[in-house]
Structure formats: structure tokens, C-alpha cells
């Protein structure tokens, strides 16, 4: 009996030991590839490169891959390029096993792991050789931030961000707005196009529209709008950001004033009662909708998809953003190409446009994997992704899709413009690759390229009016505008609306990685708030609302929200100072 027990113990320890050995052996961590860094631009060998990131798409499922843009890249660098989609799980696994793609895109969660585990190549070493675009003068502010805040040593840079806005860029508002107060154009026109300057005006307009359109042609009930529940609190704070002039940090528990760049806790607002934060503005708005009977009773169970379905069926009168129109506009136009039945967007107080991403997009960091068998080539390709040439290709198509006119200014060809909306040329459009890999470009859409045209030629002033639908043209006629987006332009000029031109969104990058216990507190607070929403939105009187709010505040305090507020406020102060210093 004892012998058997001893055998058992032996077996267990041997197993554990074998496992540990296997584990240590494979968790490559800091092992670098054995070859020496040559920093050569020798392109004679054809290699396979993969580009992976959270939120990217698998190239195998992209129609038209390799697109014209990608083919150009492949030829230029003698590679075969593939894109790979990661999620948190698979990225963690690949990092643990040292099997990541050659170029990787991560968000803030993984930065410390990548740095400590030495998974990234120091791009600074290639400054004068293979990485000229990354280290160009225009990228200086971005690079300083990467070297100061997203690095582990002096003068080392591991990451680059996409879509860097150069200092002298001026943006326009596109043809149509994509955020604000959504209305049905035909109904809005019918009620006389009342001025909508704030949420109360909006609710009045919605009420009026509902009166003339109480149900759809198919007999389905009509509501003003609903909420989407698969993005946590986004549906509330985003609405509020538009109404109050803030931008949200990740998760929306903290917001940044778009004009003063001050940080405010969005939900736990006891320290700044005089400020109506986006979350409370949004929740109060939904509460008012509820009291007026305009809110979809399914608002707590609807996911984005179901939301789009209801929009397609025409069951909603309003909304916040133009990616929730469903297929309504397309379907109506298919029935009657001159229909006025379309959703359009009017401006709110904040036009989420004219963003100045001086340090690039937040939360997307590209690096070259130190485990890659082709580090040099990968650096070259990453550098090319950051270049003006590639950004122009992605946004406007390769040369040929746009040409230089007689005045020397580049313009999209008529063929390209018509191809975009021509359903019969869909395959050709996909092959052209306009818009694919849009997350990887180094330059912002509005930057002026060296040939005098914007990176994204679709935003050139003379192209903007070309894509208007009949309803949008009618809107311009009725409201005496050139473009539907001029509604925002007028308001900004009059001072009743703002855009993001003064918002320094790079401050976020100056913050340290959030420590685990603060992350836990924030995530708990988010959950607690989610659960409190039904009582808030469905409060029948103001007293009920305030009482539900007070209960929520107490619960948050119990979850440690004060510690979180302290960490974020202190962190923000030093980040703000640091970033503003770098700016000088």
C-alpha cells in the first residue's frame, strides 16, 4: 500500500516537473532571434509578412485581397502580406508563446507585457536607415510621446501610432455629419424645421414628429429612439458628450472637457456638482424620453444589431449617430430614388469632428515583433505604412484612381467617384482596396500631402457635394446650405457649437498604465452603474431620479470609487503638464 502511495507521489511530481520544464522552455519571453541585426535594405529574398492586431480583419476573409494597395506594397518590398485578427485571448496566447505576427497592433492593456517581455524591436535604431518616415519631422511630437511614455528607457521607441494629424492641418466636416441629432428629413421638414439647440428642443421636435407619424406603413409602433446595450454605458455617455462638449476616455468613466482639457469623473460627480457630466446628461435625456412615452420599451434588451433592424423597419424617429440608420435610407432610395424619407443628422453642441490627433490615434500601437524572422523587412514595411504614399493609397486609391489635374492639384477621377456608388462594380471597388487597412496609415485623412492635395481626396472641397442623395440636396435647398454638414459649420461660426479643434487628446497617452486594483474598481463601478440604469431611466419624477442617483453614489463609494478618482485626477494632472510641455 505504501509503495503504491509512494509511486503516486512520484508520478505527480514527475508530471509537475515535466510540465514546468515544458512551460518554461516554451514561454520564450525575452529570447531574441539568434541572427544579428543587419539593418539592411536588401530586398532580394522574398519573405512572408503578417500584420496582426486587435480589431483587424483576417485577410483571408477580405474580398479582393490582395487589393491594389496591398499589391503595390508587396511588389515594392518583395513580400507577401497577410492580415490577422487578434482578440485579447489569442494575443495573450501568442505573446506567451512568442508566436506573434511580424507587425503587431496592441492597445494599452498589453504595453507593459510587451515592454517587459522584450517582444518589440527598438525602432530608434533604424532612425537613419530604414525608418525615415517614422522619424520624419512632422512626427516629432508623436515620437517624443512614444519615447517618453510608451517606452522603457531613454531614447528608445518601440511603438508608432496611426493617423497622426500634422500641426497645420485644417479639416472640414465632410458631406454629412455622422453624429448629433438624427431626424427623419421628410418629417422634420413637415414640422417646419425647428431650431434644435439642445436636448429639450430635440425632444419637442421628436414629439411633433411622432404625432404626424405614430406608426410605420406596416403598422409597427414608432418610437423616438432606443439604447444599445452591447457597448456598456456608451449609449448614455456618448449622447451626453455630444450634448455637453466632452470626449470620453476608454470605458467612459472619465471624460475630458473638449475645450479646457480638464478631466472629470463622469458618473461619480459629487466633487464637481456644477458640471453636468455626459453620463448624467445622457441618462436624464433618456429619462425625459421615457416620461414623454417616446422611449422604446425594449431599450434595455436591444443590441446594436436589433437596433439597426428596427431602424431598417422605420420604427425610430431619432438617434445620435449615422451608423445606426440600418438599411432604411438605402431601402427607401431603392423604392423611390427621389424620396425624402431619409435619416439625416443635425448638429449637437459638440460636433465630433476636426479631431487633432497630434500623437495619432489613442489605443492603437504598432510594433515590430522581436521574434520575427524578418525584422529588417518588417521595419521597412511598418515604415511604409506610416508614409504619406501609403496613406494616400489607402484613402484615395493607388495613383490612377486619382490624377493630377492641369493645375497640378491631385483629384479623384470621375471613374473612381462613380465606382463607389455603382453596385455593379462592387468587386472592382473591393479590389481597389480604398479604405481597407485604414487603421494602419500613418497620416491623418485631412493632412495636406506634398503634392498639395489632402491624403484623403474624398474630403477635398470640390468632391464633397458630389455624393449627396436627393434628400440631402433637398435639405441643402431648404436650409440654404451648400452641404448638409454646413449646419455644424454655421453653428461653430456662431459660437453655439464647438468641434474638437482645441481638444488635446494626446493627454491620455501621458498617463501610466492603470494599476490592476484601479482597473478592478473601475470595472466594478461600470457594472454597478449598468445595473442602476433601469431605475434612473424609468424614474417617474425628479425626486425618484435624484433618489436613485443618491443610491448609486453610495454604492459606488462602497466599491472604492474615491480611490479611482484620486488616481485618475493625479495622473491626469501630471500627464497634462507633461504633454503640454512636450508641445512647446
Amino acid at each position, binding site marked *: 500500500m505504501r509503495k*503504491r502511495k509512494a509511486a*503516486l507521489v512520484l508520478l505527480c511530481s514527475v508530471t509537475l516537473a515535466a*510540465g514546468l520544464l*515544458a*512551460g518554461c*522552455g*516554451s*514561454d520564450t519571453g525575452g529570447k531574441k532571434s539568434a541572427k544579428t541585426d543587419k539593418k539592411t535594405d536588401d530586398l532580394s529574398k522574398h519573405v512572408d509578412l*503578417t500584420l496582426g492586431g486587435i*480589431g483587424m480583419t483576417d485577410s*483571408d*476573409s477580405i*474580398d479582393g485581397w490582395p487589393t491594389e494597395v496591398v499589391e503595390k506594397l508587396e511588389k515594392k518590398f518583395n513580400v507577401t502580406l497577410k492580415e*490577422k485578427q487578434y*482578440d485579447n*485571448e*489569442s494575443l*495573450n*496566447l501568442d505573446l*506567451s*508563446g512568442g*508566436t506573434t505576427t511580424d507587425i503587431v497592433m496592441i*492597445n494599452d492593456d498589453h504595453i507593459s507585457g510587451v515592454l517587459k517581455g522584450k517582444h518589440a524591436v527598438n525602432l530608434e535604431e533604424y532612425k537613419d536607415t530604414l525608418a525615415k518616415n517614422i522619424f520624419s519631422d512632422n512626427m516629432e511630437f508623436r515620437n517624443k510621446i512614444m519615447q517618453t511614455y510608451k517606452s522603457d528607457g531613454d531614447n528608445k521607441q518601440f511603438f508608432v501610432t496611426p*493617423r497622426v494629424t500634422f500641426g497645420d492641418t485644417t479639416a472640414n466636416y465632410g458631406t454629412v455629419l*455622422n*453624429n448629433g441629432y438624427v431626424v427623419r428629413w421628410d418629417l422634420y421638414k413637415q414640422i417646419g424645421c425647428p431650431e434644435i439647440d439642445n436636448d429639450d428642443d430635440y425632444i419637442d421636435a421628436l414629439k411633433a414628429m411622432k404625432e404626424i407619424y405614430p406608426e410605420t406603413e*406596416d403598422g409597427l409602433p414608432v418610437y423616438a429612439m432606443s439604447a*444599445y446595450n*452591447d*457597448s*456598456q454605458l*456608451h449609449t448614455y455617455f456618448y449622447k451626453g458628450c455630444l450634448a455637453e462638449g466632452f*470626449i*470620453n*476616455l*476608454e*470605458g467612459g468613466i472619465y471624460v475630458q472637457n473638449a475645450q479646457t482639457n480638464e478631466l472629470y469623473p463622469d458618473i461619480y460627480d459629487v466633487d464637481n456638482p456644477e458640471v453636468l457630466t455626459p453620463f448624467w446628461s445622457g441618462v436624464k435625456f433618456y429619462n425625459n424620453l421615457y416620461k414623454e412615452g417616446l422611449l422604446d420599451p425594449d431599450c434595455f434588451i436591444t*443590441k*446594436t*444589431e436589433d437596433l*439597426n*433592424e428596427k431602424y*431598417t*423597419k422605420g420604427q425610430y424617429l431619432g438617434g445620435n*449617430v*449615422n*451608423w*445606426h440608420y440600418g*438599411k432604411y435610407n438605402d*431601402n427607401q432610395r431603392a423604392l423611390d430614388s427621389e424620396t425624402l424619407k431619409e435619416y439625416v443628422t443635425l448638429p449637437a453642441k459638440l460636433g*465630433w469632428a476636426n479631431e487633432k490627433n497630434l500623437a495619432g*490615434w*489613442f*489605443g492603437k500601437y504598432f510594433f515590430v515583433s522581436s521574434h520575427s524572422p524578418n525584422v529588417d523587412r518588417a521595419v521597412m514595411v511598418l515604415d511604409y505604412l506610416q508614409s504619406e504614399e501609403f496613406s494616400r493609397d489607402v484613402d484615395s486609391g493607388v495613383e490612377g484612381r486619382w490624377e493630377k489635374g492641369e493645375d497640378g492639384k491631385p483629384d479623384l477621377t470621375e471613374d473612381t467617384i462613380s465606382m463607389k456608388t455603382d453596385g455593379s462594380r462592387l468587386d472592382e471597388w473591393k479590389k481597389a482596396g480604398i*479604405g481597407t487597412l*485604414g*487603421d494602419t496609415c500613418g497620416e491623418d*485623412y485631412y493632412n495636406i500631402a506634398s503634392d498639395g492635395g489632402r491624403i484623403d481626396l474624398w474630403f477635398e472641397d470640390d468632391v464633397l457635394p458630389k455624393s449627396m442623395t436627393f434628400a440631402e440636396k433637398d435639405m441643402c435647398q431648404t436650409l440654404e446650405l451648400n452641404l448638409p454638414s454646413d449646419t455644424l459649420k454655421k453653428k461653430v461660426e456662431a459660437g453655439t457649437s464647438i468641434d474638437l479643434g482645441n481638444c488635446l*487628446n494626446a493627454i491620455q497617452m501621458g498617463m501610466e498604465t492603470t494599476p490592476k486594483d484601479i482597473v478592478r474598481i473601475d470595472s466594478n463601478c461600470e457594472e454597478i452603474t449598468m445595473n442602476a440604469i433601469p431605475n434612473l431611466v424609468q424614474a417617474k419624477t425628479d425626486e425618484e431620479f435624484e433618489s436613485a442617483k443618491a443610491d448609486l453614489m453610495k454604492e459606488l463609494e462602497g466599491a472604492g470609487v474615491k480611490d479611482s478618482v484620486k488616481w485618475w485626477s493625479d495622473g491626469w494632472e501630471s500627464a497634462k503638464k507633461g504633454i503640454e510641455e512636450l508641445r512647446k
Partner: protein
Amino acid sequence: MKKNKIKTTPSRKVFQFFNYIFLLMVTLICIYPFWYIIIYTFSDPGIADVNPPVLIPRGFSLKNYKDIFELKGFFHAVFISGLRTVIGTAASVVACSFLGYLFTKDEMPGRKFLYRFLIMTMYISGGMISTYIVIKSYGLLNNFWVYILPMMISAYNIVLIKTFVEQLPPSLEESARLDGAGYITVFTKVIMPLSKPIIATVAVFVAVGHWNSWFDNHIYTRGNPQLTTLQYLLYNYLNEAQRLAEQIKNTSNLNGLSQMVSSISPKGIRMTITVLAALPIFMVYPFMQKYFVKGIMVGAVKG
């Protein structure tokens, strides 16, 4: 075989009547949602979006199916799923039934210990990352055999088979042993034929498990389009909307969002893949069914 007939009493007739009604209702509840999915897939996508079908397809159209068959890698995924189901089921059924038999043998040294060793695997797990590292160190990443080997020995199925075999009359095995048969011979000539119901059941369980599995694809063979399974294809479509919603939550960048949202495949595609993924099972099912629905095939074979 002269059967003693039991008198059909009135209470028996009442019972049978209600039984029929009850079972029919249950079946209906089970069928209708699937029927809804099927008629949805045969409806014109444009119409179904706005006005979903109730009993018959609205605007009969094969567009959904055409789209799926033209999907990149669809047929290859079907092939891979089929291959792993066939090989995996064969391997697993042989291994599990053999082990199920062996564990009934008291004369196995350390039987209790080994049996418990096996059953514990149902309740412990090392976690995803360590499993990944281990699989990688065995060289099974991006390798077809990662679909077969880890799932081959299933404690649950072994327990089922062991329980069944234990209930077989021992005289059958004894007489075979007296004739000098070894364990393997006894297993193949005596036990297996008698255990057809449970082996068929386990085969169905394992086959469906293989056919439906996508998680190992997701973790171990992602990089390799040659090894994509049908269910993983379906999983990607099913979760597009969810993944996008998560992205929206975490981003303050709106550019391109409307393009992303509109590029999510319509509901019809998801329903179609569901139908196509479930269909093969129902084509094979009737062949297995006769083994465990009594009356279709006589159960125990005596002597």
C-alpha cells in the same frame, strides 16, 4: 415468441392519448424555431429584414445559399469538419469503448486509482495559457492532429460505456474466456456487439462534439486557413456584431465606423450557416438512431 398481451384498459387509452398530445406539443416547440430559421434562409434577404416570415418563406430566394457557397473556403471547411469528425469519432469510440470495457475488470492492478485518475480530468484544468504552451511544445500548433488527440480519451464517455458493460450478463464473457480468448478478442467478439446501443450513443455524442467544435480551431490553428472548421466559420459570423459592439465601446475614433457596421453580414447569412452546419448531422442521424430507439432494432442479442 408468443407475447402475453396486456389488456388495453380505458385508462391506458386515455394515458396514450394525452401522451401523444404532450409529446407532439414538445416536438412542435422544438421544431418551430428551426423551421423559422429554415424559412428565413429561403426568404429574400431584403424582405426578411423588414418583414420576417412566419410559416412559409417570404419571397422565395436561394440568394443566401448562393452567397454561402461562394464564400471563401466554405467547402474546404466542410471537408475539414467532416474529416475530423470521421477520424476523431473512430479514434475516440475505439479508445473509449475499449477502456470502458477494461475498467470493468477488477483484476486490473490499480484499477480504482486509474479510474479516478481518469475521472478527475473532468473537473480540473490548467487554464488556457498553460494548455496552449503544452500543445505548442508537442508541436501540435497548426497541426490537424490537435483536433483529434486531446479529445480522444473522454472520461464521460468511458463512464457511460463502463456502466453499460457492467450490466451485461457475465456468463457471456466467461464462456468466451473458457474457450481461451484474450481480452482483446473478448472485447471485439463479445462485448462490442452486445454494446451497440451505448457505442452508437457515444459515437453520436463524439461525432456531434467534433462537428460542433470551434474553440480548438480558435486557439490552436487560427493562422492556418487550411485547417478552418465549418463551426469556426460560423462562430466568426455569429460574433461579428458582438466584437464590433465591443470595439465601439472602447474607441473614441469614429472614422470608418459606419462602414464597419454596414459590413456586418446580415442575419440571413448566419441562419444559413446554422442550417448548413446542422444538416449533415441529420442526414447521418437516422442511421445511428436505430441502435438506440427500441423497437426499430431488436436490442439484446441472446446467444
